[in-house]
């Protein structure tokens, strides 16, 4: 899948550059129309690349899980991530980041189309060519990671967790090295998660009811604030799940491992909870990026349309995730 993604990233870079050149050189209406056709091809390739990224994201963790028996001492994906940690972090972080960036580009491109104006400036296509370059780098890094994974070294046991599907729990021997030492840190995390997620959801609900535009400065501030809030909630949620919620949801007291939470089947709906959070954060981020477009005359109607939908989607998924966690905790305490 990574090799196919790499090939498609090359095709995307080529078509985006060809479209940018067409827009730049286009003088008369005929050239503009021809450039529009090349933009359609670039957009279509971008959609296929996004589909490959989305299909490849869960398969990445299936592949990492298949390395577990190869690495002496590893009992779950966390052990695998300790081999070549930097490259592994890059490979894992690249997928969601590129899904967000490519999704944002496609959203802004659909706004431009619905605004009815022909593409006069090539910067949209140049931005896509840049994204294609990043995509090629990400898939290249993944291929390098897979092929260089053969030179394995022993890793210390990550934590006491059942290998693969069977939950053969051994006595607590090790903690994760980066477990937050004090309970005060965990209290901060709880506050950030159980306070931040509902706040962001309510904010999105309020924004989805907006009708009249605000001033340009206020919109730009909103854009930055919402982006920061989305990123902050996503980070806090990741830490909260691995540090606090994973042991509770899996009922393994010392088991601070997000990978086991998603894969070892002890919390069947964990993937759905984390998936909802991811979709909510992405939707909030994309809604933030639309704020400037709400001011532009030509694209305002379409921007409002998408903005309202994204805010509703973000609020719904965040609240759904929060509700599912609450139910788990209630059942756990009962």
């Amino acid at each position, binding site marked *: 899948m990574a090799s196919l993604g790499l090939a498609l990233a090359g095709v995307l870079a080529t078509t985006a550059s060809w479209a940018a050149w067409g827009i730049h050189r286009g003088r*008369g*209406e*005929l050239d*503009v*129309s021809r450039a*529009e056709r090349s933009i359609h091809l670039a957009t279509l390739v971008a959609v296929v690349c996004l589909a490959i990224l989305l299909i490849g994201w869960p398969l990445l963790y299936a592949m990492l899980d298949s390395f577990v028996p190869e690495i002496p001492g590893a009992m779950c994906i966390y052990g695998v991530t300790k081999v070549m940690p930097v490259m592994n972090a890059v490979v894992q972080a690249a997928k969601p980041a590129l899904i967000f960036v490519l999704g944002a580009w496609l959203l802004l491109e659909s706004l431009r*189309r*619905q*605004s*009815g*104006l*022909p*593409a006069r400036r090539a910067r949209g296509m140049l931005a896509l060519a840049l994204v294609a370059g990043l995509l090629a780098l990400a898939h290249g890094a993944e291929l390098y990671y897979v092929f260089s994974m053969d030179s394995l070294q022993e890793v210390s046991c990550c934590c006491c967790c059942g290998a693969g599907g069977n939950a053969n729990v051994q006595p607590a021997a090790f903690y994760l090295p980066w477990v937050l030492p004090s309970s005060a840190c965990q209290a901060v995390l709880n506050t950030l998660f159980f306070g931040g997620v509902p706040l962001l959801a309510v904010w999105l609900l309020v924004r989805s009811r907006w*009708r*009249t*535009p605000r001033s340009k400065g206020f919109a730009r501030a909103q854009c930055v604030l919402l982006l920061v809030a989305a990123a902050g909630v996503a980070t806090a949620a990741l830490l909260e799940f691995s540090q606090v919620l994973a042991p509770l949801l899996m009922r393994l007291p010392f088991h601070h491992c997000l990978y086991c939470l998603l894969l070892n089947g002890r919390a069947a709906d964990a993937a759905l909870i984390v998936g909802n959070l991811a979709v909510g954060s992405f939707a909030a981020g994309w809604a933030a990026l639309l704020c400037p477009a*709400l*001011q*532009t*005359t*030509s694209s*305002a*109607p*379409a921007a*409002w*349309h998408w903005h*309202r939908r994204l805010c509703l989607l973000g609020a719904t998924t965040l609240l759904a995730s929060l509700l599912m966690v609450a139910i788990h905790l209630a059942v756990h305490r009962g």
Partner: protein
Amino acid sequence: MAARGPTAGRGHPLRTPNDMTPAVRTHQVTRYYPAARSDPVKAVDCVDLELALGEMAVVCGPSASGKTTLLSLIAGLDRPGSGRVELFGRPLAEMSDAALTLLRRTHVGLLFRDFKLLPGLSAWENVALPLVPMGTPLRQRKRAAAGWLDRLGVAEVADRPPEQLSGGQQQHVALARALVNDPQLVLADEPTSQVDAASAETILATFEAMVAHGKTVIITTHDPTLVRSCPRRYHMIAGRLEHRPWSSTSIVFSRCSWPRWGSPWQVY
């Protein structure tokens, strides 16, 4: 214009045409087609045309004189090499292909010489084709298509594919498709060339009813009945358009194929 709230449907705010805005205006519109071993072919050469709402115009001229190309440029199907085309006051040059298509979908009805119906689809599905990308539900599409087929007197063929219809019936289905979106402008390319007299009569009556309702109709034809029924007549030869009042004799001459003199001025 301050940004207004989101419109009802997907799309962009269009200024609804008022009485003063001309429905169609072309200014020095030119369209050349590159030829392999000779000079580019002048399909449309510096054409100026202006039609207000509620008018009907007829364009005659020998074959390959550029009539169809002119209609394509007006409908936004094709882009002019130079010059400007404006529909309902909006310059098409400033619109992207997507916006052009949207404008065509909502404001323009097209009737082709050879009907251009999709084989394999039934008559009502052909009529409802423009409604599909607008998100109109199936039942509503079927009702609208049946209504127009009934109005044009071909309701009985609704469920039959085009291959099983006569030329007249196909032209009525094509006309119903052109009118299903209630367009402000109808462009008909030789609508009566492949139909019998009765069908031609029905088509002409339909056009006249539309003009009466304030729509604009542009017809390219060789049919003298259509020419006689229309006060505004144009003659097109070698890509050039002239507004010429016609006597009956002149119509006859236009039908034979004149040697190409390369000169735009024809004496009749």
